[in-house]
């Protein structure tokens, strides 16, 4: 059973990392600010979601898992708001 969990975690976290790398490449390669913002928020949020998913089994108990998910949700909320503000400020 734990072998399966290990495999699942490695898979999820590595997928998450791939998304992070994609987001960073987008940040570096894209020509102007809105596109960079777009790349960053989309890729990094999904990446974070996958990493959180991968780590869920290790949090030991429901409370830890809920905390981890709340971290993800808060990042989603603040990421969205900040992207809107930066986009509005740049335009």
């Amino acid at each position, binding site marked *: 059973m734990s072998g399966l969990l290990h495999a699942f975690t490695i898979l999820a976290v590595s997928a998450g990392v791939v998304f992070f790398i994609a987001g960073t490449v987008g940040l570096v390669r894209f020509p102007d600010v809105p596109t960079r913002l777009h790349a960053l928020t989309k890729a990094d949020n999904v990446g974070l979601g996958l990493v959180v998913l991968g780590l869920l089994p290790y949090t030991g108990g429901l409370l830890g898992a809920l905390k981890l998910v709340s971290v993800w949700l*808060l990042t989603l909320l*603040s990421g969205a708001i900040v992207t809107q*503000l930066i986009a509005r400020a740049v335009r």
Partner: protein
Amino acid sequence: MALVFDIGIVSLLIAIGAWMIMARDTLVAVIIFVVYGLLMSIAWVRLSAVDVALTEAAIGSGITGMLLLSAAARLRQTEGAGARPSFPVCVAAGSLCALISAGLAGVVLLPADVAPTLAPLAVANLADTGLENPVAGVLFAYRALDTLLEKVVLLLALLGVWSLGSDRAWGGAPALGAYVPPNDILVFFAQVLPPIGIVFAAYMTWTGASHPGGAFQGGTVLAVMWLLVMMAGVARAPPISSTKVRWLLVAGPALFLAVGFLGFVIAAGFLAYPVDYAKALIVLIEIALALSIGVTLALLAAGPPERTLQP
């Protein structure tokens, strides 16, 4: 394996530190400072000092970053001020600083054979304080005098910031967020996040007695939430002469001092707690401190009073 991660963190820290010093533009340097602060809190976690990591993230890079960012934005046009000192001075300064850090590294290299520590003593006496978190034990019991004096330092800093306002603006309100155009996104954010923040701050202050956390970290989150609300224009910054604000500012240290003097009567001396309900007292103090730290840090970041009181 962990060493590789540490080496990564350390080299990143040093690189970012150097970049921050060398950056041409102050705004860029401040943004790098915020990143540096977050990395530093990871370094604290690696040094298994979670309390400090929380404080560093909240105060070290959070509210300090916000303060420096707003100052850098406001001072953009004074960028060209003054030139860097001449080259020989830079070289001399660099060599002297290198010498000092080499000395420091030397001291780090040769540790005492058995590293002297107060951990056993702290843990042994922790039972008397009724707390489980040793850092909170040190802060609120063993070295309570330092914490009390430090609170007074905070109040003095606030008074110093207030004294920089002009005479006619005394009693007025800081100009934080007074000029921000109505921005629905920020208003939405300022309505959604604070409730979560307040719950989070309350939790942080409460668990401080047994797990990493405490009054300072909780207080800082409260301060940031209030700053967000003020900056979004949802609520106006309070005038500094309002008695409610003044009482809130003084509540924490006053209660701490009162409990300290109470120690003369009910316990062994100043800032001593009776063993059986020490924890209750300490938690009470932490709650009051969290409140007053929140208000103090927020007003510190809000700056000196500028708008006179509209009667």
